[in-house]
């Protein structure tokens, strides 16, 4: 019972922080007075140093040029740093430089907010790159997603315009006023709970057996804070938040869980405050929560069942399927976390998703396939926006008017973009998996190194990899060995496509809608802030996702599930 209370408390606290945070975020972006105004001299200094005029408004294309340019620069910077880290200071464990392949994959992974890791931090990264590359990218990639979403906010103010605010302004303020202060606060909580924050190298301890064991440590707390707050998910250690230094106890577990949830929730409410349509926000939040519950409840249910295979071994399974889960968190909190981290594109893990029951694994997959129930920092709402446009179109026709969203007509151009973004998800995830499977089929012996579990589960592992990378989630079914040429490059490509096209698409739509006449509401207008419309949106999300992935899921998790019993 306490376990259930724990997860309800996490949800409650996340909501209790998320809603006021949303109000605050709306204030930050609209430039209203807020209590962080004392930081504006620093922001002004940054703008002056960079030669940016934060009041100069951009159209959507200029926004995208700005976004892509700075992302490109970070990518080159990260590649350079990772490939040369052997020579840097702050490398007490003398970790080697990354290979170009691995550096490519890692740079893209952190730049795109994915944090897919084909390496383990303790052996493959220096403290300098952990801080100046990985933690740095965790801040800026989160801020990029948030700034991109503000472009959409601006498109639906009550005026016709192509001026949608200044990208750099939103980007810098996302960091100085939202991400940095909250991260700082979270890191303090972690420090008090024993999370390391040091530049010293490996420590040596003598175990009870009398063995000498070297234990990795480093500047962990600072990274783990933004890792969750910015929905990044890339761990300091290979074992991620299952590692005792990265997630020492139930309290830090709660903190990390809540930290990754608050900004996605806040952005939904910020939208409502910003464009003064709070009811719309509540409906969107309701749809997302409904989706989340429908994923998390079966997961917890099936994880609480006993695995028939382990039962046959004569092992007691009173607390459910504990394989791959940490005793200090328990089955329920781990199952709950696994869905939170997959609906939101964090991808940090406190248990091994590979070891979940087939249905649990399928729910994680579905969460990432939708990727719009809360979703990542800023980008979750962007993904939701695409579903919204398709729903508005179908529902709008059904009430006998040219479909319109917040008074703007949805026409061929917007449909084209929305369809292309949806299509792309399918091409990358299913196409990528198909190529991997095809390669594996054509020569199972030479590709045997990829999979630790062949059979249905091996298929799920490959499907999971592409799904997670395209969703910019970064969690993995750990059975897949990703540090091979194919997975490094294919994964890198999937992450890039999965990051930028779902940003550019919705913003292009918003840019086009912003320039359209605003049609005043009448009795004949389809309102998007009603319960009915919320249900239709949910149905559209559910049916499109199910239609796209049902056959694949049949061959993976479902085949495994039905074969188990």
């Amino acid at each position, binding site marked *: 019972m306490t376990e259930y209370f724990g997860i309800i408390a996490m949800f409650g606290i996340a909501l209790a922080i998320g809603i006021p945070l949303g109000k605050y975020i709306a204030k930050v972006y609209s430039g209203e007075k807020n209590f962080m105004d004392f930081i504006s001299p620093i922001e002004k200094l940054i703008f002056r140093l960079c030669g940016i005029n934060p009041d100069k408004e951009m159209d959507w294309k200029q926004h995208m040029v700005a976004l892509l340019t700075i992302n490109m620069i970070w990518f080159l910077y990260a590649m350079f740093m990772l490939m040369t880290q052997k020579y840097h200071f702050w490398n007490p464990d003398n970790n080697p430089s990354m290979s170009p392949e691995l550096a490519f994959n890692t740079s893209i992974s952190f730049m795109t907010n994915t944090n897919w890791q084909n390496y383990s931090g303790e052996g493959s990264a220096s403290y300098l790159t952990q801080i100046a590359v990985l933690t740095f990218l965790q801040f800026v990639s989160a801020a990029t997603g948030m700034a991109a979403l503000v472009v959409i906010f601006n498109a639906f103010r009550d005026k016709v315009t192509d001026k949608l605010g200044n990208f750099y302004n939103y980007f810098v303020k996302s960091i100085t006023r939202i991400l940095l202060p909250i991260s700082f606060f979270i890191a303090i909580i972690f420090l008090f709970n024993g999370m390391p924050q040091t530049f010293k190298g490996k420590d040596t301890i003598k175990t009870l057996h009398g063995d000498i064991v070297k234990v990795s440590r480093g500047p962990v707390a600072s990274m783990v804070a933004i890792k969750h707050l910015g929905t990044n998910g890339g761990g300091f250690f290979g074992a991620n938040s299952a590692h005792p230094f990265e997630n020492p106890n139930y309290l830090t577990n709660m903190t990390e869980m809540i930290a990754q949830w608050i900004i996605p929730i806040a952005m939904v409410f910020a939208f409502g405050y910003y464009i003064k349509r709070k009811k719309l926000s509540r409906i969107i939040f309701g749809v997302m929560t409904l989706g989340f519950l429908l994923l998390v409840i079966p997961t917890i249910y099936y994880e609480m069942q006993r695995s028939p295979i382990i039962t046959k071994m004569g092992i007691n399974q009173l607390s459910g399927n504990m394989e791959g889960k940490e005793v200090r968190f328990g089955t329920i909190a781990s199952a709950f976390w696994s869905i939170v981290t997959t609906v939101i594109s964090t991808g940090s893990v406190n248990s091994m998703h590979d070891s979940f029951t087939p249905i649990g694994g399928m729910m994680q997959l579905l969460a990432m396939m939708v990727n719009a129930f809360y979703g990542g920092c800023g980008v979750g709402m962007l993904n939701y926006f695409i579903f919204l446009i398709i729903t508005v179109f179908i529902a709008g026709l059904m009430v006998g008017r040219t479909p319109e969203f917040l008074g703007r007509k949805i*026409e061929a151009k917007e449909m084209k973009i929305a369809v292309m973004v949806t*299509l792309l998800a399918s091409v990358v995830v299913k196409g990528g998996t198909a190529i991997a499977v095809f390669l594996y089929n054509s020569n199972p012996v030479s590709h045997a190194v990829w999979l630790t579990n062949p059979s249905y589960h091996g298929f799920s592992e490959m499907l999971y990899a592409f799904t997670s990378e395209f969703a910019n989630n970064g969690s993995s079914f750990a059975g897949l060995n990703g540090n091979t040429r194919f997975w490094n490059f294919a994964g890198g490509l999937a992450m890039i496509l999965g990051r930028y096209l779902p940003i550019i698409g919705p913003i292009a739509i918003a840019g086009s809608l912003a320039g359209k006449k605003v049609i005043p509401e009448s009795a004949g207008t389809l309102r998007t802030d009603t319960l009915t419309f919320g249900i239709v949106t949910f149905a559209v999300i559910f049916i499109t996702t199910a239609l796209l992935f049902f056959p694949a899921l049949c061959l993976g998790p479902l085949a495994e599930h039905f074969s188990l019993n």
Partner: protein
Amino acid sequence: MKRNRKKISLFDRRFMKEGFIQSFIKLNPKIMLKNPVMFTVEAGTLVMLIVSVITILNKNSGQGSFAYNFAITLILFITVLFANFAEALAEARGKAQAESLRKARHETPANLLLNNGKIKIVNSSELKKGDIFIVSAGEYIPTDGEIIEGLASIDESAITGESAPVIREAGGDKSGVTGGTKVLSDKIKVVVTIQQGESFLDKMIALVEGANRQKTPNEIALTILLAGFTMLFIIVCVTLEPFANYSKTPITVAALISLFVCLIPTTIGGLLSAIGIAGMDRALRANVITKSGKAVETAGDVDVLLLDKTGTITIGNRKATNFFPVNGTDGSYFINACAWSSFSDDTPEGKSIIELAKTKTNINSSHVAGAKFIKFSAETRSSGVDIPDGTRIRKGAFEAIRKIVENAGNEFSEEVSFKVLEITENGGTPLVVAENGKVLGIIELQDIIKPGITERFDRLRKMGVKTVMVTGDNKLTAKYIAYKAGVDDFIAEAKPEDKLNYIRSEQTKGKLVSMMGDGTNDAPALAQADVGVAMNSGTQAAKEAGNMVDLDNDPTKLIEIVEIGKQLLITRGTLTTFSIANDVAKYFAIVPALFINSIPALQALNIMHLASPQSAILSAVIFNAIIIPLLIPLALKGVKYRPIGASALLRRNLLIYGFGGIAAPFIGIKLIDMLIGLF
């Protein structure tokens, strides 16, 4: 209104035959390419045909028996035919409707007026734009034109179905004549205003015929969505092949193509163009000629309707409703005076005064024997009678009579001014009657609001359409009638440019405006309006400016047009929803069937308990095929529009077509599977 329009049954034999032939002609891939969804089905049929042949040649191809493969091929082929048939049927019906109009304009001789003043008899098809011809009583008008000289009564029943003749004359707003109509009296000189083959009717016929049909904006957007779904399912099916290989589950081509065809939205894909054509056809049936399909679609989006008061909201003319004697005039004498002054007044108002007077008292007609009747003139703005005994009676507008009274050196009493104001405030029009420069009393004229119009406005309000009354009346009268009829706004003392300005100001607020007009004065406003409906009796300029022409000249037609537009969109939306919702059940039929042989555990997903994988696949494709003809009636008739507010409408349609769309195929596929089991 009497219309001699015949109701054509949905599956009339003539159309069935025409549709049947056309559905084969439309198999031409070039034509099919216009419809990406059905094109892929045709391609799939071809692949299946090849596979079927292979199964004859090679018994061990692993693709199943020839009979099974051929059955699938046949069903896919029929699916394409059904879709073609739907389109062809809609076209045939539209064409028949247009033909019946076109029949009216068979070749007729025309009296062409040559430059030298002589008349040459030519064929109507030889007339060019700008030519002038003459038509006399008993002759047919050879082509569309505008009267430049004369006045005639014309029988337009061939086009409108309205049997009462109408008056058309040069100069006014009723100068347009249509080819095929018959002149009943008098003689008119008409200038040809259209090029042969470019009349509205010609354009309309082209719109319902496939060849020139342009897709409308909403239809394009929907086609993109459907093409997107089709591509998504191509990816689903193509990637399924390696996935299945990994699980050592060979999938037959038949199964893969069946899965694909069942998943892509063939239902809406097959019916989409039929829905569009049927929408135009419905407009045509309402005797409205549209210049583009887009106009019909836009009509569904209209936010503001501009309606002329006279003829739309009120029955044509004002009627006398009351006599108010003032200054102590004897009531009976006053009524007599009113009647005398109206004896020569041919206007409907004048007639109504006499009518009302007769019901109130005995009129002493002999009193005005030998009197001189003064007709109404724009200068004096009054009419009346000069009786031989020297009495001069005048009736007219308040201002006009005041002038007469004041010129006579008399005072205009408070009582009169007060009464005039009172009548005006109640929406009436006061006519003041004076005798020898002294006011006798006031006649009250009232507009009669059309029965049932208030309910129609109520219906429009629920649709979210704002109604605006346009009238030349003063503000007080306009306000009163607007209130009584239940319109949302009004433009009083309207000049032609007021309409234009009002439309512009609404449009800058983002609203779509529709109006109806007939005069040349209306042309700029008709052009400015998003949906401008010109009356067929109107001037050529008005007809050119609008994007629809109403053959019935019925001002309330706008309301019907809005509903036709909405119905068109709703039909598309609901059938799309239905089509996509169908996929859920089809998945549960086909996907287990694909894998059961190698992964028996997936039998658990066969929730319909279909007999065998092959019968499951067959049932799904058969259901997928027959649902198209089953929905043809709905596509052609259109889903009924109900003005119950957007949210309620969405709920309703969602329940029927969304949930119905999920449930129907579960039942249908199971039934077909049971039927197949009988063989």
